[in-house]
Every structure is written in C-alpha cells, then in structure tokens.
C-alpha cells in the first residue's frame, strides 16, 4: 500500500484540570490513506475528536500532547511551529465542526468568511477567490449565490450554515477533510442531505475524509474504514465490510446491538450497561473492562495492545478469540 | 393526606435554610480568596469605626478654628495640618467621615426601600402596574441620578435628611429593576409553585420564598450603591449644593483645597487621599462580593 496521507503514531494527550489530570488520548495510532473515508466512532469523552484536533493544533489551552507523532505528507505536525501549522490548516487540511449555529462569525458576511480561507493562504487572488466562492456556494447548494454572498450567518438555517462551513473547509481544495460530528446538531432529514453532499464532494475531488461521530450507523454508511474508540484508546479498527460482518470487540458488539436497523424487526435494542468514566490516571487495564461481560483479572491489570486479528482487522482485547467464537 | 402535604412543606423550608447557610459560608470562603477585597473590607471597617467614634476622638472642634495657626503644614499638634481659618484637618476629616457615612447609608437605604417596594409590586402584580413602573425605571435610568438630586436639593434644602432624600429618591430605579427580575425568575420556580398550590397568599410567598433567595444579589447591589452615593454627596458639595458649611464634608474640603492648592497642598492630600482610598475599598469589597455570590461573576 502507498504511503498514508496522515498517520498518527502513539499519540498521548492529557488535559490538566484544577485538581487533577485527564488522560484523554492514550497511545493511539492509525493512518488514513488518500481517497479514503475513515470513521472514528465513540461516545462523548472517548477522545475521538481530541485525537484529531490535537494533531492539527486546535486543542484547548489546558490540553497537552505528551508524546506521539502525527505525520502528514511526511512532516510531523506535532513538531511544527504554530506558524507552519497555520499554513497547513485550511489549505491542506479542512475542518468542519459540530455546531454550525456558533461556528460562523456572526458579524462577517458569509462570502467573506469563505474567501478569507483562500486569501489567508494566498491560494487565489481576490478576484479569483470571489469567483471561486460563488462557484463553491453553487456547488454546496446555496441558491442565488451572488446575492447570498453578502448575507450574514443568522440569515441561514442550521443546515445551510453547515453547508457554508463545508464550503469554508473546502475552499483551498484540501487533501484531507476532518468532519467533527458534522451532523449531530442538525435535524435528521438535514443530516442526510449534508452527508450526501459530503459524499458527493469527496468523490468529485478525490479527497480523504475523517468523520468523527458517535453515530455508528452514519459511520458505516459513509466510511470505508471504521475505528472504534473508548476511554482514549482504539478498541477495534477494520474496514467497514469486515466490521459489519465480524466486529469482535465486546464494545463494538454492544455498539452494533444498540442501534436500530431496518429489517431488524423483533430484535431488541440492548444498551451497553454502565457509563463511560473519565480517566484521571494513566490506564492500567482495559478501559472498557468495567462494563465488559468478558472481563477477567487480566483485563484490569494489563492494557490490551492493538493487534492484528485478520485481514484489515485490528483489535485491542485480551479475549478477542474467545469473544469471536462466542459470537459465531 | 393533609399531614403529608404539611410535612412536605416543612421539609422544603428546612432544606432551604440549610442550603442558604452553607451558601453564605461558601460565599465567604470565596470572598476571602480575593486579597484586594479583604484589604478593602479592612479599610471599610476602619472607616466606619472612625465615623462612629470620630466625635469622641477628634482632638479639636470642627466649628472653631485656631486663628493663630492658619494654613499650617502637618505637625504634631495638627497632624494633617490646618486650613485657611485654622480648622484642624484631622478633626475635620473625622467629622466628614461621619457625615458622609450617615448620608451615604441613609440615601442607599432610601433608594433601596423604594426600589424594593416598586420592584416587588411590578414583579408580583404585573399588568399595568408593571408597565408603568418599568417605564418610570427606563426614564430614571436614561438620566444620571445626580441631575435629579440637584433639583431635589433646591426643593428640600441642604440638611442631613434633605440630602439623604435628594440622593436617595432618584436612585431607586436600579434596585427596582433588579428586584423585579429576581421576582420574575423566582415566580415560576417549582418551590413557589408548591407554596401556591398549598394556598399561600401572595404576600406570604413574597416574604417567605422570594426575599431570602434574593439576599445575595441585593447585597451586591447595595455594596455598589454606597460608594456611588458617596461620590454624589461629594459631587453636590463641589457644586456648592452639599452640606451647609461649617459642617465638614469631603466635597467641601476637596473643593476648597483646589482653590489654594499650590500654596497648601496638604489640604488636598489627606481628604482626597482618604476619600479615594475609601471609594476604592468599597469597590473592591463590592467586586469581591459579586464574584463570591453571583454565579456569573469572576473570570
């Protein structure tokens, strides 16, 4: 396989709070290749967005990357100076955030907000940037782009604002788009439209997309590969097909069982018992152990390594084989 | 059935009191963390004590000056110096503290009482009463209270009570608005609904459930009110509309010092310095209270 576009290696992120520290991301490694759609699935607090945001320098002030690498086109993003990182953000890596209602500058015309991305990176001249903005607005499905160029965010609906966010992220034709819960704040019907738009844009441009979501169904619909995170660690990683057929980690199985699928009539939805906990100490065992039905002594005392478990299938569970035999 | 209702009722009340006490304790703990606020509080206490015992410790009378010792620089006999008719500045300041405190506290209370009455009325009654009162609040807030105070002084005169009223009466609007908003936010809360379901009268609801809950916010408002009124008193004196001389006041002293400041600057140092430090202290205390007792305060 070719060199990956972005590869995260042994990333570790801590947040310091007034009293203690939170171990948000622990020893996470994965890679995304060109033209690939990767879904990172997990509950809130599982460290899924922190992993990506910290690698592009958009981490909160109290967050600290304690070790690891984030290689993007051969450069370690974590070692770049803030200025160099600024050059990459928005030009080579675009980001779409969760809440379109608050993510746009309320007192700046939306056209200017899209143009700003291009002008900042000297991607285009003012005139070119304007033309490209109009074109982008058209492409993302905003009618009458010439007059809407001058509108302010509050004159748009949530779905429309998210489209504008996408236009901002795509303004400089980035190779990688990070979408952090892009549809969570939207109505269900609008969610589908936004996803369809993203899918369409991805195919046309041949860019890679990472979708961070808590919505397992969304990830399986959209992505080629899926990574499941829990407690700041990767639990399982596999291609989507493999995942749907043979998800083996007890947590993944739980996730699958907790969603409603068409055709699953009669099958009961079973929530995973217990609740996710915030780690305030370095993990000493499997983070999911407390809620896991397969838990043994070993799970509490030894952090499971992410290991190969078949073609394109990785898992971090001491008892994967056992679980697999059980599931089949 | 009836007994269970009564029990629930008393339980609600008990719980409430417990919460309040610990809230004040928590607030005090937060307040103590602000060093400037604590320093301010110490000064405010000293200032108030000076106001209370001033007349007994003042070495000289404020009315009679020593004509043989006019415009003297600070010395052992006159530690803050003397003014152009031989008044001992130290004694003058002690008396000024007293008059300033009497008027500031009195005026703040007057504003507060009017504000509470009108605010409660507007909040509880609603309708036309509310509309009229809020219009009046808007009107009062558009213009500085000092303007009204000036006109009131003309009408009422320049005695203690007149000044208390002249400064106090125009200051009600802020308190009324605060109280009304507190009432409105409380009115629909569960606790009051429960009381209403029990058939408690409106006056009872106001006294028992709303007032205790707003004490924190009102304390902060009052703490900001006193330094504001101190400024107004001095401002009236500067304008020649404050306490009638020979009753000493900070405003008069500061204004007089301004007249012959190049020759006898100590006439300014002490009154202006003490006045400024006092205002600053009150403001630090109010700031500290706000951060300690209002959830939004602080950074």
């Amino acid at each position, binding site marked *: 396989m070719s060199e990956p576009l972005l590869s995260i290696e042994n990333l570790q992120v801590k947040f310091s709070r007034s009293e203690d520290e939170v171990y948000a991301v622990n020893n996470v490694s994965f890679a995304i290749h060109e033209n690939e759609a990767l879904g990172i699935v997990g509950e809130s607090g599982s460290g899924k967005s922190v992993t990506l945001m910290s690698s592009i320098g958009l981490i909160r002030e109290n967050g600290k990357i304690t070790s690891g690498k984030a290689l993007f086109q051969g450069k370690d993003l974590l070692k770049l100076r803030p200025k160099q990182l600024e050059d990459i*953000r928005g030009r080579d890596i675009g980001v779409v955030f969760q809440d379109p209602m608050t993510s746009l500058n309320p007192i700046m015309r939306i056209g200017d907000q899209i143009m700003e991305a291009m002008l900042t990176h000297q991607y285009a001249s003012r005139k070119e940037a304007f033309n490209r903005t109009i074109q982008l607005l058209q492409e993302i499905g905003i009618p009458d782009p010439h007059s809407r160029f001058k509108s302010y965010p509050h004159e748009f609906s949530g779905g429309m604002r998210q489209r504008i966010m996408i236009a901002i992220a795509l303004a400089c034709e980035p190779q990688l788009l990070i979408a952090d819960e892009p549809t969570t704040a939207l109505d269900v019907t609008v969610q589908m439209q936004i996803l369809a738009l993203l899918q369409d844009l991805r195919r046309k441009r041949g860019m890679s997309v990472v979708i961070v979501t808590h919505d397992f169904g969304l990830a399986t619909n959209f992505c080629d590969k899926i990574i499941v995170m829990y407690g700041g660690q990767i639990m399982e990683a596999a291609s989507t097909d493999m995942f749907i057929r043979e998800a083996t980690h007890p947590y993944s199985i739980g996730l699958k069982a907790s969603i409603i699928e068409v055709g699953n009539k009669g099958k009961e939805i079973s929530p995973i018992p217990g609740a996710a906990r915030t780690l305030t100490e370095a993990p000493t065992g499997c983070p999911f152990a407390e809620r896991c039905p397969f838990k043994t002594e070993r799970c509490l005392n030894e952090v499971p390594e992410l290991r190969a478990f078949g073609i394109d299938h990785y898992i971090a569970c001491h008892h994967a084989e056992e679980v697999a035999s059980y599931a089949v | 059935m009836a007994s269970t209702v009564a029990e629930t009722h008393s339980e609600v009340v008990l719980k409430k009191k417990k919460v309040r006490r610990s809230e004040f304790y928590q607030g005090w703990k937060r307040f103590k963390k602000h060093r400037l606020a604590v320093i301010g509080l110490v000064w405010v206490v000293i200032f108030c004590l000076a106001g209370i015992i001033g007349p007994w410790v003042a070495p000289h009378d404020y009315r009679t000056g020593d004509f043989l010792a006019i415009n003297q620089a600070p010395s052992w006999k006159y530690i803050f110096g003397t003014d152009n008719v031989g008044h001992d500045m130290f004694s003058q300041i002690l008396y000024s503290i007293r008059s300033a405190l009497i008027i500031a506290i009195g005026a703040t209370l007057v504003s507060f009482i009017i504000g509470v009455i009108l605010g409660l009325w507007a909040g509880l009654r609603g309708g036309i009463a509310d509309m009229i009162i809020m219009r009046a609040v808007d009107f009062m807030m558009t213009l500085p209270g000092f303007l009204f105070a000036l006109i009131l002084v003309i009408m009422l005169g320049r005695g203690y009570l007149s000044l208390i009223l002249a400064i106090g009466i125009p200051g009600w609007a802020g308190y009324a608005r605060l109280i009304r908003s507190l009432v409105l936010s409380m009115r629909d809360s569960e606790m009051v609904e429960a009381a209403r379901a029990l058939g408690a009268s409106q006056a009872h609801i106001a006294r028992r459930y709303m007032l205790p809950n707003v004490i924190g916010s009102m304390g902060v408002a009052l703490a900001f009110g006193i*330094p504001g009124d101190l400024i107004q008193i001095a401002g009236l004196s500067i304008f020649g509309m404050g306490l009638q001389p020979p009753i000493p006041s900070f405003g008069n002293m500061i204004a007089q010092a301004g007249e012959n400041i190049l020759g006898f600057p100590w006439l300014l140092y002490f009154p202006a310095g003490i006045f400024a430090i006092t205002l600053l202290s009150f403001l630090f205390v109010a700031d500290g209270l706000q951060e300690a007792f209002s959830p939004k305060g602080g950074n």
Partner: protein
Amino acid sequence: MAILKFISKRIVQIIITLILVISVSYIMMYFSPGGFMNTSTMATALAPLQGQNPVLYQEVMEQFQSRYGLNLPLYQQILKYVWHELTFDFGNSMQNPSLSIMSQLQRTLPVSVILAFGSIILSVVVGVPLGIIAALKRNTWVDYLVSTVSLAGQAIPAFVLAVILVLLFGVVFQGILPITGWGRWDEAILPIICLSAANVGVVARYMRGSLIETLRSDFIRTAKAKGVKYWPMVMKHGVKNSLTAMITVIGPQFAFTVMGTIWVEQIFAIPGLGQVMQTAFTSFDFPLAITSVFLLGSMIMVMNLMVDIIYAIIDPRVKL
C-alpha cells in the same frame, strides 16, 4: 431605510423624555421653598415697596409674574415652558434679566460638548487597546496592572482626580501643561484626562472580559481551522465581535461623562455649561436651571442615540 425609521422613532422617544424632564424640573422648582417660582419670595423682597407705593408694587409684581408666566394655572405654565424649551426659546435669566440665556449657552455649551466628546474618544482610544492587551496577556502582570489601574480609574471620581492633577502639574511638573483656563488647545488636555479616567477603566474591563469570552467561542476555532494568523484572528474575529457586545454596556456609562463635565469645569475654572448650571442652581435662577438640565439631558440622550446607531451599523443581527 430601516435605520431612518429607527432614528425617527428614537427621536420621538427622546422628545417625550425631555418633556418629562422639563415638567418634573418645573414642578419641583415651583414647589421649592426658596425658589423664585414662588411669588412669595418676590413679594418678600418687594415688601417695603408695598407700603411706599402700592400701585408700583402691584405693577412690578404683575410684570414679574407675566414675564415668567407665573399668573397662569400650573399646567399651562408647564405646557408653555415645555414648548419654549423644545423650540429653543429659552428667554432671559432671572439673575441677570438683560442677558438672554441663549447668548450664555452659545458661549458655554460648545465647551462642554468638546469636553464630553473629547473624553469619550480618548477613553475608547485608550480603553480598547488596554482591554485587548489585558485579555491576550491574561493572568500575567500586565493584566493585573491594567485591571488595577482600571478599577482605580473607576473608583476615583473625576473631581478628585482633577484636584490631584492640578496639584501634580502645578507643583511637581510645573509648567508642562496649563492647569486652569480655557481657550488654548492644551488647556483641554487635563480636564479631558480627568473625565476619561473612569471610562477608560470601564471600557478596558469590559473589553477584557468580552474579548476573553469571544476568543473561546466556536467561530474563533473555525478561524484557526482556516489557518487565519494570530493577529488577523484576534482583530478581525475577536475584537470586532467583542466591540458589539461592549457597546451596549458602554452607552449608559457615557451619561456620567456628561455629568462629570460639570464637576471638572468647576475645578479647572472652565467656562462651560457646568458653571452656568452652578450659578443657576445656587442662585435659584430657575429658567437658567431648567434650561441647563434640559440641555444636559439632551446631550446624554443624543449620545445614547449615537451609540445605538453605531451598534446597528456594526452588528448585522440588530433588528432596527
């Protein structure tokens, strides 16, 4: 066009408020014991005349009453007075009947307007950058210094600061700046500094809080994600948004600046509206007093209107 409608609506509001102000002042002065409104004061003054020449006494009294409209019923007096004030027909002062109030104002009002606006401009020009520095250097000594100085500026009233500055520039830095008078440009410096101190403090403190809050908001993260550099991000996204939040709070604060001019004029011996007002109030010259109250109120409200208009211009979300 929405803005014209908004302005005209606000002007109507301002006029109603001014009518109220004039009426309230008139009524209060009418009932004040020592005021000239009260014909009894005049009667006492003319008492000796009554014995000597009752006809002349009657004539003088009537002339006095009709000159100030005191022979009409109270409500008519008020209406008449309101009308006169609103049409800028202020009449003559009582202390100095040969002098028209208008001529006094032509001399003094511009002085106060210069002081008030000068200080507002200064407080924004100084306060906003201070607030920005404090916000960006949060919890460093720079921040603490700015916060403390701002609080001190807020706590020390203009008249105390005025006296302190007079002392400073009269004794320590003698001859650098003039400490009294009015006429040369440099004579405006110290008074304007006095008036601005409190506002610089308020502006800086609000700016700091507002900017800290704004910099935490989601759209700042979006700007960072776009790769926008630090300073453009702070200025274009942070400061601009903070200003809109701040303006609403600052508007009323400036009312006190206008009030402060009348104190500062006292101490720097500046012939402005404040001095006219002081003469009027201390000598119970009621037409002059009411007129100065009217003008002071107008200045404050015009200032608030301007703040509202600026707010509407920079914040597109404001519905007029």
